[in-house]
């Protein structure tokens, strides 16, 4: 039993500690990510059947490609990558990056050179060591089987670069986990003059005023209406119970008791004046409807839906204009009778729609509403630190090349010595070839 478990563990470590396995996981991760880029996410199934042939649409839905980033495949591949990262860190990165000092067969290492110099072993060794020490190499000496070896290391500390990068990932993962465990987020919509209570914090958010700026710009392609500002003036009451006037803009969230509030959207809420036989029906007329909301006409099978606000109607065509500024406003209304659509129309504000049976509806006035996102994220500092550590790890790994030089000095006849020199790096030999060539040339020139 123990042997079998040991065997499973060995197989697990061998598989997950394999760099090619990790790269294969990256590949699958990349492909899944790209699928999410190409396939629209979170749409109604009918959209996929409208955009793709039926077999592909079915495959998209069955394989969760319509919500791929929350699918078992995606979460599973990230879990496998994190497992691989952990195994690689402990089984490959740490042991491989801190190699012990050992003798080598000089001529078996691709980057090697040998010199014959005059002098006894001690004086030659001193010259070799002085050469490397002058160039910032860290020198150590060890004796193996009666032969003394000199080891010269450069950027030895940078061997930990990959480890630092891996630790960065772990810290980021810890930060995001902290958010999942203790943070929260949500969205809310507030109509001008109204207030909402945030369920998680009990803070009260009142929208005093919302404004937006749109600048018409004449471009080569025609008139473009460029939005340039969205601003919500709010009164916020937090834990201290003191109402505070604050301003929320895109890129400028407000902080209320460590929960941040972001300007997210805006729109036009509508009041519809409803009359029956010329008399106002206050219960319906006082309601404020958001785009997409509807109401029933009492005692009938009629339903009136407020589909969309049209800020400007083109006077000539009677169709919605591209101008998002409120000039000649209208609403798009749909009337249904017993669940069947009876008609849809663009209705200018203050214009009656006769529904029959003495019922009339008029879109009377609009109110701007502002959409806010709010988020409490205690993991932000950890994620920030993790990102910094990750970048440091990458920079260390890529820009500092740890190299080790091995020097062995053997006495030969005639008061001369042979200096064998070899170099290894953590990134192969090609990366260090130029520097090694330079070192050899310099040493050759100095020693002779």
């Amino acid at each position, binding site marked *: 039993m123990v042997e079998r478990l040991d065997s499973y563990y060995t197989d697990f470590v061998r598989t997950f500690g394999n760099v090619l396995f990790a790269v294969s996981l990256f590949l699958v991760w990349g492909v899944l990510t790209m699928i999410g*880029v190409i396939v629209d996410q979170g749409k109604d199934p009918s959209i996929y059947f409208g955009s793709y042939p039926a077999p592909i649409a079915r495959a998209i839905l069955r394989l969760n490609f319509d919500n791929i980033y929350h699918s078992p495949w995606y979460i599973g591949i990230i879990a496998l990558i994190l497992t691989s990262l952990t195994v690689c860190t402990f089984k490959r990165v740490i042991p491989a990056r801190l190699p012990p000092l050992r003798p080598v067969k000089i001529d078996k290492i691709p980057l090697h050179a040998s010199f014959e110099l005059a002098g006894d072993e001690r004086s030659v060794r001193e010259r070799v060591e002085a050469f490397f020490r002058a160039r910032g190499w860290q020198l150590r000496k060890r004796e193996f089987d009666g032969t003394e070896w000199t080891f010269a290391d450069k950027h030895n500390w940078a061997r930990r670069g990959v480890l630092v990068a891996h630790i960065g990932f772990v810290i980021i993962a810890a930060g995001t986990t902290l958010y999942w465990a203790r943070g929260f987020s949500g969205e809310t919509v507030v109509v001008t003059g109204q207030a909402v209570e945030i369920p998680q914090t009990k803070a009260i958010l009142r929208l005093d005023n919302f404004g937006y700026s749109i600048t018409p710009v004449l471009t080569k*392609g025609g008139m473009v209406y460029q939005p340039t500002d969205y601003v919500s003036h709010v009164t916020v009451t937090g834990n201290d119970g003191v109402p505070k006037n604050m301003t929320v803009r895109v890129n400028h969230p407000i902080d209320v008791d460590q929960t941040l509030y972001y300007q997210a959207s805006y729109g036009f809420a509508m009041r519809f004046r409803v009359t029956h036989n010329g008399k106002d029906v206050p219960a319906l007329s006082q309601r404020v409807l958001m785009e997409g909301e509807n109401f029933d006409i009492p005692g009938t099978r009629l339903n009136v839906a407020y589909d969309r606000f049209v800020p400007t109607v083109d006077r000539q065509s009677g169709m919605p204009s591209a101008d998002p500024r409120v000039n000649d406003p209208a609403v798009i209304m749909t009337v249904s009778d017993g669940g069947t659509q009876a008609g849809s129309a663009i209705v200018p504000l203050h214009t009656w729609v006769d529904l029959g049976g003495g019922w009339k509806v008029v879109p009377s006035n609009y109110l701007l509403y502002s959409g806010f996102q709010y988020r409490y994220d205690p993991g932000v500092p950890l994620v920030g630190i993790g990102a910094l550590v990750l970048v440091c790890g990458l920079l260390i790994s890529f820009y500092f090349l740890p190299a080790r030089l091995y020097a062995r000095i053997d006495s030969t006849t005639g008061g001369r010595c042979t200096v064998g020199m070899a170099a290894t790096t953590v990134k192969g030999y090609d*990366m260090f*070839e130029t520097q090694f060539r330079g070192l050899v040339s310099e040493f050759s020139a100095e020693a002779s």
Partner: protein
Amino acid sequence: MNGHLQADELLMIVAIACYIFGALALLVYFFSREEWLRNLGAPLAIVGCAAQFAQLFVRWELTGIWPLLNLYGSLSLFAAMSVLIFIIMAWRYKAWYAGGFVLALAAIALAYGVTWNEGTMPAVPSLQSYWAKIHVPIVVSSYAAFLVAFVFSVIYLIKYYAEDLFEGKGILAAMSERGTRLSPEYAVASAALADAGLPTPPPYNIRQDTPAIDAAAASGNSTATWLQSLPSLAQLDVIVYRAVAIGLPLISIGIITGAAWAKEAWGAYWQWDPKETAALATWIVYLAYMHLHTRNNWRGLRTNWVSVLGFAVVIFTYLGVNIWISGLHSYKV
């Protein structure tokens, strides 16, 4: 105002002209190795690059709007940074021979960017942030570094497969071969080089990573002589690695700064927006490149194919997502 805009356009014309003529000169230099062509092409690349940075600065100065908030501006910086990174690498690694390809791609990017120039537009609210001055240049610079890596990878692959052709295998056989010749086996080659009349080797052993080309060049084959004038496969591979080593940290920082900006603008680091996720896919490909580059039997041919694949993903991320897929990053004009 009109006069200023003319100055802006004039600088753009200078840049495009320098890139086109520089590309022609350096492309011919790539094949002929005539020194005067390099001496002509290199200054043109430098002048074109300087003109582009000046153009971006003038545009910013005159309109008061950060010029990188649309595809025209970002492609302009992409071209300028590609040339700048190339100039630095060419100077560092004596690699002007690749300049024709880099300048040609820069000219194409610039010309394509001009088609997206709709004039001066104020920034939408989400782009009115100091992050625009940090995130955008970093990401665009990473793409530029990947372009340079792509060019050197293509040269690597040309030389690699040419070696197979000289060995008589044929291109299909060469492409189907999965092995790598970049094993760390260095042959002591002084005798062979001396026989071939080539320079004496330095006092350490060297690798013959293209022996068939070397042998054909020694026997007077002009194509082989030209191929031999290119750096060794190992040197080309190192240049590609260096370019990716510029691009990968930059795109990492770019994704991180983008996440920080998203947090500030929308409240979440990550929105699974197509541009974000495509950038993540790009990052994954180059991360895979770096991991594969640690393996002796993957370093070389395979990693250079990964670099080519990576650049295809970069183009999709940079242009494809902006143009074909709508999302939070659809700032085309």
